[in-house]
C-alpha cells in the first residue's frame, strides 16, 4: 500500500455532499439577499444597506450618560427635538461593555440628523441644549458632520478601492495558480461579503443599524482574511495535484487537501475569533458593530474556504473533463 493522499483520514467529504453544501450556502445567503432587495425598494437612498452619514452626509452627536434610557424616554427626546425644529432625528442608545470601571463610559446616547449647510454649529448646540434640559449630566463625547458632497465622494472612492483590490487579487492568483482558482477565490469572497452585508441589511431593517467608514474597513479585513484562508487550501490542492495527479482523481485530491488543511483552517479562525471576541466583549462601545462584522465575516470565510471555494474548483474540473470526454 502506497502512501497517498487517498489515505488521508476524511473528516468531511466535501465532494460527495457538494449539493448539500451548496444548499446550505443558499440558505445562509437567502435571507440577507431578500433583506437587501427589500431595502433597495423601500429606502429613500435605494441602497441595500442602511447607509450612515459618512456616505450620505449628515450629523451625529453622541453623549455619554450614566444610566440607561428607556424607549419611552427615547420617544420623549424625539418629540422634544422635533418641537425644536430638528428635522427627522434618529436616536439610539448604545449599550455598555462588559468592563465597568469608574472611569469608563457607560451608555451612549446617539442622535443623527441632517447636515445643515449654513448654521451647522447652531443646530448642534440647539440639540445639546434640549438634551441637557432632560439629562444634565450628559457630556458630548463625539460629533461628526459630513457634507453630502464629501460623503458621496468617500463612498465612490471606497467602492473603487475595493474593486481594484479584487482585480489585484485575481491577477496575482492567476499568475501564481490558475484563472479558475482566482475566480473561485473571488466568488468565495463575494459569498462572504454577501453574507455579512445581508446580516447587516437585516440588522438595518430591524435594529436601525447603519453602515459607516468603519464598516468598510471591517469588510476589507474580512476580504483579506477570506482570500488568505482560501489560498491555504488552494496551495494544498496545487501541491497534492503535482505529486498525486497520476494515481488519484481530481475530486479525491481536492477532498484530501481540504481535510489536510481542516485543522489549520479551524484553528486559525478560532484564534482570530478569540481575539475578536475579546474586542467585542471588552472593547469600546463605539466599535461593537465594527467587530461584529469581522466576527461574522471570519466565521463565514472559514466556511466558504472549506465548503465553497474548493468544491467549486472540483466542480469546474469535472465539467471540463466531461466536456473533453464528450468531444473524444
Amino acid at each position, binding site marked *: 500500500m502506497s502512501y497517498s493522499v487517498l489515505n488521508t483520514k476524511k473528516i468531511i467529504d466535501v465532494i460527495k455532499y457538494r449539493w448539500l453544501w451548496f444548499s446550505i450556502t443558499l440558505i445562509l445567503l437567502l435571507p440577507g439577499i431578500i433583506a437587501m432587495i427589500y431595502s433597495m425598494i423601500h429606502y429613500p437612498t435605494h441602497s441595500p444597506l442602511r447607509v450612515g452619514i459618512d456616505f450620505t452626509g449628515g450629523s451625529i452627536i453622541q453623549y455619554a450618560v450614566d444610566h440607561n434610557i428607556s424607549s419611552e424616554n427615547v420617544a420623549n427626546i424625539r418629540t422634544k427635538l422635533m418641537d425644536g425644529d430638528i428635522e427627522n432625528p434618529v436616536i439610539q442608545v448604545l449599550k455598555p461593555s462588559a468592563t465597568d470601571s469608574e472611569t469608563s463610559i457607560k451608555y451612549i446616547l446617539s442622535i443623527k440628523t441632517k447636515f445643515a449647510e449654513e448654521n451647522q454649529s447652531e443646530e448642534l448646540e440647539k440639540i445639546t441644549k434640549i438634551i441637557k434640559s432632560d439629562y444634565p449630566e450628559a457630556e458630548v463625547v463625539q460629533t461628526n458632520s459630513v457634507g453630502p458632497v464629501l460623503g458621496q465622494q468617500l463612498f465612490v472612492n471606497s467602492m473603487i478601492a475595493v474593486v481594484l483590490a479584487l482585480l489585484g487579487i485575481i491577477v496575482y492568483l492567476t499568475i501564481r495558480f490558475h484563472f479558475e482558482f482566482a475566480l473561485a477565490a473571488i466568488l468565495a469572497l463575494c459569498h462572504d461579503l454577501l453574507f455579512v452585508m445581508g446580516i447587516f441589511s437585516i440588522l438595518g431593517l430591524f435594529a436601525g443599524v447603519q453602515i459607516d467608514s468603519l464598516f468598510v474597513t*471591517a469588510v476589507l479585513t474580512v476580504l483579506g482574511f477570506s482570500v488568505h*484562508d482560501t489560498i491555504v487550501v488552494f496551495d494544498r490542492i496545487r501541491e497534492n495535484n503535482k505529486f498525486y495527479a497520476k494515481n488519484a482523481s481530481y475530486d479525491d485530491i481536492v477532498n484530501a487537501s481540504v481535510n489536510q488543511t481542516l485543522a489549520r483552517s479551524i484553528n*486559525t479562525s478560532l*484564534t482570530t475569533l478569540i481575539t475578536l471576541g475579546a474586542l467585542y466583549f471588552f472593547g469600546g462601545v463605539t466599535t461593537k458593530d465594527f467587530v461584529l462584522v469581522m466576527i461574522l465575516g471570519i466565521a463565514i470565510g472559514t466556511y466558504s474556504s472549506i465548503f465553497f471555494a474548493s468544491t467549486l474548483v472540483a466542480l469546474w474540473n469535472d465539467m471540463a473533463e466531461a466536456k473533453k470526454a464528450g468531444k473524444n
Partner: protein
Amino acid sequence: MKNKVIMFWIIIALTLLSIFVIHSMPTRLGLDLKGGSRIVLEAQTTETISKITQDMMDALKATLDRRINPQGISEITIQQIEDKRLLIEIPTDSDLKEVRRKLSEIAELEFKKPILDDNGNVVRWESSGLTGKDLEKASVGTDEAGKWVIQLSFNAQGARKFAQLTKEFRGYPIAIYFNGEVMSEPLVKQEIIGGQAQISGDYTHERAKADVDLLNAGALPVPAKILEENAVSPTLGVDSLNKSYIAGFVGLAFVMLFVIFWYRVPGFIADIALIIYSLITFAVFKITGVTLTLAGIAGFILSVGMAVDANILIFERTKEELKAGRTLFTAINAGFDRAFTSIFDSNMSTIITCVILYFLGSNIVKGFALTLAIGVAVSMFSAITVTKNFMHLMFGTGQLKHPALFGLRESDINQAYEAAETKREKAKFGVLD
C-alpha cells in the same frame, strides 16, 4: 548549528532594540484614541474669484494657521488635501464652537466715510479705502473709562490714509465696520497723524481678544466652507484606548493558551515568537511614524491573526511530516518549506490589497492598510526566522522521542510508518515524496 546560535543572538538583539524603541519613542495616537477634532474645509469660488489658485490656498492656509494657532505653540496641523481642500487637525480639543467661529469669520475690517447732505447729516456710508490690509497690528487695551477696546496701529500707508481721512472729516463721524457690521461710529475731533486708532464697542475681554486674533491673522483670501467635521472628546478617546488595551491583552492571552494547549512545546515557542513579533511590529510602527487609530488597531489585530496562522500552518505541516516518519530536523525543515508557499501567497495577496487601499482609500482606510501591511511583512520574518530558529535550537536533530511534545500520540507515528512506503532512511535525508 553555529549559524543557528548566531541567529538566536541576532533575534535577541533585535528584540531588545525594539523594546528600547518602544520605550523611548512616543506613540502617535489618532484623534479617535486621544480625543480631538478634525475639520475638512473647501475654498469656495465667488463672483469676484472664479478660480482657486495654489497661491490662494497657501494664503488661506497661512491665515487659518495664524487664526487658530496665534502663538504657534499647540500641535494643530493644517495640511492641503486635494486642490481646494484643507484638513485641520486639533488634538485633545473637541469643542468645535470656538474653532468654527474662527474659521468662518471673514475678518474684514473697513473704515467708511460719511456721505453728507447739505445740512451736514450722514446720508449713507461709503468705502474710504482704509481696510484691514493697512493694519500693522491689533491689540487689546482699555479706554479712560476702563472699558475693553481694540487698539489698532496702521502701517505707513495705512497711517497716511487715516491721516487723510481724519483731516477731511474733522468734526464729522466716520464708521468702523467689522465683518459687515458697524462696530462704532466715532466723531473725528482732530486729524490723527501717528497711525493709531481704537475701536470701542461693548467688548468683553474674551470677545476683544478673539477679534484681535482675527485682525492680526488677516482676512481670508477666499471664503471657505466646512465639508466635514469630526470631534471626539478626550474622555471617549481614552475610554476607547483603555478598552482596546484590555481587549488586546485578554485576546492575546487566550490565543496563547489555545496555541499551547493544541501544539504543546511548539505552541510555547510560537507564543514567544508572537511576543517578539508584537514588539518588533510596534517598534516599526513607531519608527515609521504610524498614527495609531481604531482602524489601525484592527489592521494590527488581523496581522496578529495572520502571524499565528503562519505558525499553525507550519506546525500542522511539521506534525504531518513527523507522522510520515521523518526525523525532527528534516520534519521541521520540511514543515517550514512546504508551509512557506501558502504563507507567501496568502500574505502577498494581503499586501497587494493593502497597497491599493493605501493609495485609494480614505484616511481611515489608509491607517488600516498601513498597519496591516507592516504587520504582515514582520510576521513573515517572525514565522520564518524566529520560530524556525527556536524550534531547531530546542529540538536538535535526533528522532522525536516524546511525541507528546508535539501533541502527537505514539500510535500516530507508528501507524504512519506502516502506511508509508517511504523508507525510514529516505525520510531521514528529507527526501519529499
